């Protein structure tokens, strides 16, 4: 299992052809208290770089982009009743959705942990 990141502050845990996606601790800190998450529908096709979910904080709505293309296989139902999991456990229990990759070559375009940390340091 490998952990990747995007410059849009999503993390991706890839296990074979299944990818689990969430937002990073940096992102949840920037957002503030999350009050609602709009998740994709199982079976939906998502394209890398396109909006896949919406996270609403007290102040504003933010798009969460699909880091990779594929079909949604699971969504985190726990976020319906407990959107605050995104703040308290962004890289664990606060995951958003899982997808079956349609093009694993897209992984080449993602950042590893060191590159993401370096990127965040510039912000």
């Amino acid at each position, binding site marked *: 299992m490998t952990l990747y990141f995007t410059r*849009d*502050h*999503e993390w991706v845990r890839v296990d074979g052809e299944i990818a689990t996606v969430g*937002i990073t601790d940096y*992102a949840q800190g*920037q957002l*503030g*208290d999350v*009050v*609602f998450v*709009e998740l994709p529908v199982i079976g939906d096709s998502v394209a890398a770089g396109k909006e896949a979910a*919406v*996270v*609403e*904080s*007290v*102040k*504003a*709505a*933010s*798009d*969460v*982009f699909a880091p990779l293309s594929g079909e949604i296989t699971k969504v985190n139902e726990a976020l*319906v009743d407990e*959107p605050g999991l995104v*703040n308290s456990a962004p890289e664990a229990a606060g995951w958003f959705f899982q997808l079956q990759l349609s093009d694993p070559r897209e992984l080449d375009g993602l950042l590893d942990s060191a590159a993401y940390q370096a990127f965040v340091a510039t912000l």
Partner: protein
Amino acid sequence: MSQSDNEDDIPPAVLPLDGWHRAMGARMVPFAGYMMPVQYAPGILAEHRQTREAASLFDVSHMGQLLVSGEGSAGALEAVTPSDIAGLAQDRLRYSLLLSATGGILDDLMITHRRDGFYLVVNGATRIDDIAHLREELSDDITLNHMDDHALLALQGPQAMAALERLAPGVGRLGFMTAGAFELLGSAAWISRSGYTGEDGFEISLPASHAEALADALCAQPEVAPAGLGARDSLRLEAGLPLYGHDLDEDTTPVEAGLSFAIARRRRQDGGFPGTERIAFELSEGPARRRVGLLVEGRQPVREGALLLDIEGDEVGHVTSGGFSPTLGRPIAMGYAPATLAEPGTRVSLAARGKIFTAEVAAMPFVPHRYVRQGDPS
């Protein structure tokens, strides 16, 4: 994920408490021409709850504090507002409106009758325009002091009085919408029992040079923690209080906005304020649209800019403020609806972000006000 951009041509100015906010861990954002704290480490939800349960300290020094003095000041202010200023007793304050010739709202403000003149507090974003407007409308023998050297702090919440009484003994004797001069940490302060949260609380005007000492002394009280603009907005939304530039603007009239109470009875009869005719018409015939509260179904907030639709799906109104209510645990909003759809209980549709939401018109406030009308005589 996407992040919003802030585009300001003129770099924001700095509040007297800027360094203090940063030292307290505030996240600063540009607002009303200043860098201001939107939240501190606890976050907006915690700061909101702190205010409803104990007491929060807000820096509202971005707001315009003005002192209008000179002979004829009361009459001069009556020429630009629909208020009874001549009859405003000393040490009392009143919510008022600056009106345009067509009866539109240029700003909402508080006016206090003090011994040294009329003390006005106007919105930060409209401060410059308000000063220009007043300077034009008030005759030259009326002095307009911009009070640039003063800070304004708001202490709000059910424990506010207990905390402030330790620093300003006797402040508990003030009732809601009354004010007085107090010595606070060796400085002359003007304190009114008023606020923008629906809770009991106080607004404290004092020399900017003393603001940091006061902020430290207040936050040293066990009941008090600092709170930022984010919580200020969610609190006032729950309280049903309009925000100028969003729920009120030059195209809204006091009657449409549900602010008829700000039009004094004597002034309704005598007129003599801008927009008299439009307002008289709406008072007698009713306005075509009304500001309404909206309880949004589901959990997703519906925000400013969302459209209000009638049963045919036609746009008949819009949302002017919206967000999540921490006290109610659900999304709430404010907007304008046709008078025919403005009755509490009416179900309406809202369109936002390519989706349709259902909402129910609700009376405001969403969370009851808890003003302390009578001060404690002891």
